[in-house]
Structures are given as structure tokens and as C-alpha cells.
């Protein structure tokens, strides 16, 4: 017979109450585990998608000009000493120190042309890298496969009155419209996309490009470093990070994280209240029992140890169950919450030990006052109750 025998036997006897306490704390811990794991998994998923598919570095020709463009409305600009990027130079991008972080390079050549009496902007692209980078594109028809196939933006298709499967004529050459883009709400809607070599030829810019978009994996590398490295390799180009895209997405994630932590805080508070109320009720129910303990010579510290040990055992169980249930919940919820269907669930030992530690801390803190209250009970009260 030791003090822990009393705690364990009491837990066994008050199964319903202790189950309620365990469930209350388990729900709290499970919610926290689910939210934290979901946040981490979604962050990882969004970062991965952002890294893989979104251009975050822009390579444009160096010029001493100022753009006069705002919100898609261009008022022209003053440009002089315009230089160009040679297509061959793009290979140098793959020689930078952080070349392993580059997932795609999408070169583009731009130029105005006349099609069926309309002025349109022709964009020559490498369709493989372009489609990899612009996963959100939805094409009615097919992606162009050869030099005599083009892809039309939705507005361009309407203006040119050409749908997929039909032909258009550019500079006397006939091109098949392989596909039409669904409305994107961006400048892509007004463009005519052709293969890079063909566009270069049509625009008289063989071997040259207007700009290149680079998608870099930025989780393991500072994007600023990569910008510098590329700029060193291409001194005639202006290399800039598309900070808005990165920061915008990170801000959205940050907001979700903050929401999760706020939710977790509320749940922790409710969980603590459940533990407090249950332990307080348990102590009050056991007034006579505690009085008897005190009468036969138990010190205040002995009473506290009995109560806190009970709380610790329940909390430990709740922590383990909470982690298991929480991870299960996260696994079930992740497909509905994440952007991609193959988002990975993050299994983190910090979350595992953290949830058990948090359960213990919560259980013990919330039981501290009830334990103190119990230890201060006057044994005379127990005798009076007889």
C-alpha cells in the first residue's frame, strides 16, 4: 500500500467521472493536435505548390526606362538603351549555386501582330514549362503540340471569332487553334500563345527572348540569394523576385496559423475548465474520505500527491488518446482542407511529445487548486460529518 495505490484504485472506482474527465481533456488535446498538424501540413502543401508551380523570379531585359503601368492600364513609358536576353543565356541560370532549387524556367517572347484585322499580342512560350508553371490554366481543347498550333486566351478567341479546332492566319501562315483558355481574369485572356521558336520567327526575334519566369523552391533557400546569383550570371538582365506573390500567400498562411492558435487557445481554456470543475467536484465528494486520511495522520502534502497523481494519470492517458485522435482527425480533414489531393500529413515528434506534455501541464495546473483545497481540509470537519 502506497499513496499511488489510493490514486489508482480511486480512478478505477470512479470510472464514469474519470472517463468524462479523460474525454474532456482528450477532445481539447485532439483539437489542438488536429489544428497544428493541419496547419503544418497545409503550409507544407501550399509551399510545395507555390515552389513547384508559381513563378517567383522574373528575368527581364535591363533597360533605363520607367514603366507607366498600373492595375493593367498602360500609359506607355519611356524606355531607352533597351537590351535583350539571348535565349542561350538562360542555360546559365541552371549553373547558379542554388540550381537545385529551380523547378522550372519559362522563357517568353512577346510581340504585336495582326490577326484577322485585329492587333493582338503574340506570346511565344515553351508549352511544357509554361503548363507546368500555370497549373490553374483550364484549356478547352488541347495544348498545342507543334509549331503550327496555337492557344488562344478566352477574350482573344471571342475577338478573333475562333474556337478550338478552327484555323487562324498569322502573317500568311495557317495555324490550328488547338485549345482555348478558360477565363483567367488575367492578361492571359487577351493573348495568342504559340511555340517559342515559331513566335520568334514570326516576330523576327530568333534566338532572343523578352522575359523569363523562374519557379524556385524557396523553402530551403532565401529567394533573395537566388535573385543575386541569377543576376550575376545574366548581367544584362534585370532579375527581381515577385515578392507580392510570395508574401501574399505567406500572409494567408500566417492568418490561418493565427486562427488555429486562437482556436487552440479557446479549446485549452475549455479543457482546463473541465479538468478544474471535475477535480473540484471529485474533491468535494471526497470530503469525508480526505478527512479520514488527515485524521489518521496523512500530511497535507500526502493529500496533494494523491490528487495530483490522479490528475497526472488521467492527463497522460488523455494526452496519448488526444494525440492519436487528433492525428486521425487531421488525416481525415486534410483532403478537404488542402489545395492538392496528395498533400502529406506531417508526423512530428514535437507535436506528439508536446501534446502529451501539454495534457500533463493542463491537468496538473487545473488540479492544483482542488488539490490545495483538499489538503487544507480540516479533519474535524470529517469527524463532524460522522
Amino acid at each position, binding site marked *: *500500500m*502506497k*499513496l499511488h*495505490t*489510493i490514486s489508482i*484504485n*480511486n480512478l*478505477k*472506482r*470512479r470510472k464514469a467521472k474519470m472517463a468524462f474527465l479523460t474525454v474532456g481533456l482528450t477532445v481539447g488535446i485532439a483539437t489542438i493536435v488536429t489544428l497544428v498538424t493541419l496547419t503544418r501540413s497545409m503550409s507544407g502543401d501550399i509551399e510545395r505548390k507555390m515552389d513547384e508551380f508559381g513563378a517567383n523570379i522574373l528575368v527581364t531585359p535591363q533597360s533605363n526606362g520607367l514603366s507607366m503601368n498600373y492595375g493593367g492600364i498602360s500609359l506607355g513609358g519611356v524606355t531607352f538603351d533597351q537590351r535583350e536576353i539571348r535565349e542561350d543565356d538562360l542555360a546559365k541560370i541552371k549553373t547558379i549555386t542554388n540550381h537545385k532549387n529551380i523547378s522550372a524556367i519559362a522563357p517568353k517572347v512577346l510581340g504585336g501582330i495582326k490577326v484577322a484585322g485585329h492587333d493582338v499580342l503574340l506570346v511565344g512560350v515553351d508549352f511544357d514549362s509554361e503548363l507546368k508553371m500555370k497549373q490553374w490554366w483550364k484549356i478547352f481543347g488541347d495544348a498545342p503540340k507543334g509549331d503550327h498550333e496555337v492557344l488562344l486566351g478566352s477574350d482573344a478567341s471571342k475577338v478573333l471569332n475562333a474556337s478550338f479546332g478552327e484555323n487562324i492566319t498569322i502573317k500568311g501562315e495557317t495555324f490550328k487553334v488547338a485549345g482555348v483558355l478558360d477565363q483567367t481574369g488575367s492578361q492571359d485572356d487577351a493573348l495568342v500563345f504559340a511555340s517559342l521558336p515559331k513566335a520568334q520567327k514570326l516576330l523576327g526575334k530568333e534566338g532572343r527572348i523578352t522575359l523569363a519566369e523562374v519557379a524556385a523552391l524557396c523553402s530551403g533557400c532565401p529567394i533573395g540569394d537566388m535573385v543575386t546569383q541569377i543576376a550575376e550570371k545574366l548581367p544584362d538582365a534585370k532579375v527581381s523576385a515577385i515578392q507580392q506573390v510570395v508574401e501574399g500567400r505567406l500572409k494567408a498562411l500566417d492568418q490561418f496559423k493565427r486562427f488555429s492558435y486562437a482556436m487552440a487557445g479557446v479549446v485549452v481554456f475549455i479543457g482546463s475548465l473541465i479538468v478544474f470543475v471535475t477535480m473540484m467536484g471529485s474533491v468535494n465528494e471526497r470530503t*469525508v*474520505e480526505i478527512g*479520514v*486520511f*488527515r*485524521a*489518521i*495522520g*496523512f*500530511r*497535507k*502534502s*500526502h493529500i496533494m500527491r494523491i490528487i495530483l497523481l490522479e490528475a497526472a494519470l488521467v492527463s497522460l492517458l488523455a494526452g496519448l488518446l488526444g494525440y492519436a485522435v487528433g492525428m486521425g482527425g487531421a488525416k481525415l480533414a486534410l483532403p478537404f482542407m488542402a489545395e492538392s489531393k496528395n498533400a502529406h500529413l506531417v508526423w512530428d515528434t514535437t507535436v506528439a511529445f508536446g501534446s502529451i506534455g501539454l495534457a500533463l501541464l493542463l491537468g496538473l495546473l487545473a488540479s492544483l487548486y482542488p488539490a490545495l483545497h483538499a489538503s487544507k481540509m*480540516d*479533519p*474535524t470537519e*470529517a*469527524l*463532524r460529518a*460522522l
Partner: protein
Amino acid sequence: MALIELHSIKKQYSSGDDVVEALRGVDISIEAGEFITIMGQSGSGKSTLLSVLGGMNHPTSGDVEMAGVKLYQLPGEKLADFRAQNLGFVFQSFHLISYLTAIENVMLPLAIVRMTSVAKRSAARTALERVGLGTKLDRLPNQLSGGEQERVAIARAIVNNPHILLADEPTGNLDSRTSEEVMALFRELNDAGQTVVMVTHNPDNGRYADRTITLKDGLVL
């Protein structure tokens, strides 16, 4: 020198503006090995006297000296230690812990004592055999009769070989036949050298005691 000496014990309780004098200057001396019954009508101060004797109720004034130790001058938790080492309690409603078996209930006072588990179990078994319950060690309280529960409570009170056994109306919840058996058991323990101080309202129990102290309105008659 007597084993227990109470000098001018007064105990007052405040209830709103009223002050109730439960004990109004009690002087008692009890020798080692005595069997004392404390009798009196309800409200005479019997239970208050027992709780003061048991080191659980600070008197308003006066001293309680037990085996040369002034109880209420012990610092901090030393009074709890004193109770654990020197006193045994038997309560009116037995107050066994419902989730512990008979032997576990008896081992309860030993839970805070440095002894091996085997020694604790052996001491508890011996105490239960002394009260005639050697065959019901692993029964839960609700599997025992009232008389058997009383015996377990007595075994729990004597397991640590206390100097004094204090009992508060131990037969109050028992039928007359079981009461007789329990009182005979107290007598038997006293014959073996155990000092017993028992509060009772049953005059028949007085015949088992060496001496009866009668209280009336907080004073010894």
C-alpha cells in the same frame, strides 16, 4: 505521570453573533492501559472532547499533553505525524474507503510509513486476524456486514500499534448483538494493554470500561 492530561480545556465555536461554549474548562487525566468511556447527552461536548484529544481540533485555551508531548504546540505537520504514530481512530460510520479491500483499508495508515510492502501486508493481516476477519482480507466494504466493517475499522485503527485508541460512538450504527461483540473486542484489546478512550451514549457500554467520564454542558460531572 499520566499518559494523557487535559488542563483547563475550553472550546468555543462562533456562529454568527453567537458564541457556543462546547467545552468550558475540562481537566482529565488518563493512565496508560485504561479503558475510558465518555458519556453524556447530545450537545454535552463528547465529540468535541474526542477531537481535541485526537489532535484535530485546537482548543480555545488549555493544554493537551500526551506521552509528555504538548500536542497543540507541535509545529507545522508534526501534529499529523504525531497522529500517524501514536493515535488510532474508529469512527461511528466506520468510514472505510469503498474502493479499497479490507486489507487495503487496514494498510491505509501504513501508506505513509517507510516499510516494505510485505511488512505492511503482514501487519494488516495480523490486525485483521486479531479482530476475527482473517478470512475476509480481499472483500470490499460493501461485501461485509456492519459488524465486519466495524472490525475492519478497528483493525485499521490498531495496525500501527498506537498508544491510544480513540473511538467515537463505535456501536452507534450496530444492532445490540453486534454491539456486544464489538465492545467485547475493545475490552479484549484493552486487556492486551491498549489504552482506549471511547465516546458513547449507550450506558450499557460503560460496563466494559474501567472508568466513565460524564460530560454535561461542556463540563465534567
